[in-house]
């Protein structure tokens, strides 16, 4: 692994219940880069994230630089509506002291919340009472509260209003510039990929392209990827997301 490489993936494959859901994925990510992963529904994008995070078994090699802090914003976060957990407690799960938190962490928490557009007043509200958009902001805030070196965003703007979409992408840029955070981002929006990503990875059960978005995303490639012929014909068993 080169000095500035923080993630090296070699011939990664995911096989679940005897079905190959992802194969032949190889790429590298350097510190401070933004990598966008695109592909149609069911292409294995979220599955790739889960493999990177070690949440599903995989074949091949996934090598992170040792000692990295990783933040993850999932696409879906099903919250049990009756779980008695406040937003403050949700964040304190990441603090050194959960039951008797120190003031420094709480001050830092207020600052991080303001970055995602949440006020300090929401801290005492139960997590289950948040709307979809608020929950998404919360998850982003939760992922970045301990200043991870790498952040994985799985469609971070899904289900939130257009105004907040811009906020999210500006936040990504800010994280990159101010904290030199490496970003891995799953997105369906090509304009976002062109604007914010240094690299793009096209996926449809296997890796179709990888490189600078302006160099590798040709109209014919996109047609192959997203067009009718490019969609993977998956049945119910193969449906992963």
């Amino acid at each position, binding site marked *: 692994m080169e000095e500035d490489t923080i993630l090296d993936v070699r011939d990664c494959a995911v096989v679940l219940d005897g079905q190959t859901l992802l194969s032949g994925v190889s790429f590298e990510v350097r510190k401070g880069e933004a990598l966008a992963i695109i592909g149609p529904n069911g292409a294995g994008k979220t599955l790739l994230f889960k493999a990177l995070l070690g949440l599903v078994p995989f074949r091949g090699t996934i090598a992170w630089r040792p000692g990295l802090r990783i933040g993850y914003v999932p696409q879906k976060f099903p919250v049990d509506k*009756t779980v*008695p957990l406040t937003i403050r407690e949700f964040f304190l*799960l990441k603090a050194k002291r959960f*039951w008797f938190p120190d003031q420094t962490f709480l001050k830092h928490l207020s600052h991080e919340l303001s970055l995602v557009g949440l006020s300090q007043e929401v801290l005492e509200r139960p997590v289950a009472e948040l709307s979809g958009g608020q929950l998404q902001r919360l998850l982003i805030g939760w992922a970045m509260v301990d200043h991870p070196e790498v952040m994985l965003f799985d469609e971070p703007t899904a289900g939130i209003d257009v105004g907040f979409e811009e906020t999210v992408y500006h936040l990504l840029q800010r994280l990159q510039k101010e904290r030199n955070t490496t970003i891995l981002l799953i997105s369906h929006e090509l304009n976002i990929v062109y604007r914010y990503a240094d690299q793009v990875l096209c996926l449809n059960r296997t890796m179709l392209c990888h490189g600078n978005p302006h160099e590798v995303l040709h109209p014919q490639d996109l047609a192959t990827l997203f067009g009718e012929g490019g969609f993977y014909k998956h049945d119910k068993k193969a449906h992963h997301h």
Partner: protein
Amino acid sequence: MVGRKENGSLAVSTLFEIVRPSYLLFPALLGTMIMGLVCPLIGSYLVLRRTVFLGLTLPQIAAAGVSFTFWLQQSGFLPQWEQSERGMGMFGSLLFTFLGMGILGYLEQRGKGFPEGRLAAAYAFAGGLTILFIVFNPAGQVEVLNLLKGEVIALSKGELRLVTGVFGFVFIAVLMFRREFLLTSFDRDLAFLLKGSQVIWDVLLYLLAGLIIAFGVILAGPLLIFGFLVLPALAARPLVSRMSSFLMLSSVLGVIMAFLGFYSSVRLDLPLGPTDVTLGCCLIFLAYGLSRVPTKMGAALLMLIFVGGAVTSCATRTAPAPVPTVKDIKKEQVWLAKVKNSTALPLLLPANNPLRSLAEMAGKISSDYRQSVMDLLRDDLRKGLEQNGYSVTLPEEMDARFPPFPADMNGAVRMAREGKLSGLVFVSEIWRWEGESQKFVRVLIDFKLIRINDGTVLWERRIQRAVPTPSATNSGQASTDAATAIVHDLFTG
């Protein structure tokens, strides 16, 4: 009515009597409260994980272990465990609980089927095995059933030390690792990202759960342990919005449930497990009703006030009156009828009862005569009445054909008049007399003092409770001590 008096302060003292360390059943009360404190902490995590049914299945598996061990011993595969039946039961309970957890964990790893289905099948299987092992072991049926009923009321000081040790260990472990348990119970993926593999926390949580279930089942019974695990947590859930409050309130409600259940059980002579579980369910209904109160803190306070009110109202029940004095009954003659046994059991004392031997030696009874609980009680009643200055006569001294009198007023008066008796008749009827262990006898007896000529009930008393017999070394002595204690109660109020 003669002898009926109000004495609220006496009844209040009864409530406070059970919390005195010198109270005979104090170890049982303390043990129940310790279980009520610790079990809901584990149960809260089961509720968060939506694996509540595990709290029902594991106690049932533990119960199967108890009946299995007794069956093995009866069949000669295991040596006799001289020291304690409970010790042997604990061994079986622990063995089956951890074995069951291992199998359930393996199936979980394999990911076959769905969790509720596996737990339901395991519960049904364990329930079936429990009954089958009891059926295979007819000689020990009663002992095993008593153990599975979990008479926590018979908890000794030694067993209390064991409960304190085991549950104290679990309590400390839960406090130490509460964040890890919370994290893995809330969201496994997030927990993995923060702390890596969660297997160790899963295993530790289930080991702690297994430990309190295995010990709790043998000491308190599967029903009570399941109730303590789940009901306080379910009652606390609608009242709080913070995790820390949830865990704390669950434990507080567990202790309240334990104390109120114990008090009701002793006071009203109800079995502890069902009483506690019923109270726990009432707490859940109450909690959901109170959750409509605008502030959570207000609802929690109202709940505590309600529970406090319930305790107070129980405590201020009118105290029973003692047998009226001779002056009260104007020195009328009292006929002491034979005690009627309505239990469907013979209630004969064991043949080796030393009192019987003494009576035989004195030539008072023949060698083929077996003394009964009814005889004991009547002897004690006679002594008590005579010591209080009553002029007591036995109906059979007038006519040997007199049978025991029923406690029913009409029946007793009719029988007395047919036998041409006059004055007062003292009748007693036993409805329940169960010496489940040597430490106490559960009784339900009616006593009445009736004026024969007009059928007036001058005094009546129902004794319904577990009578402690701490110094008894066998069931005959327990019955003897219980009869003495009951008669003492009648004359002191």
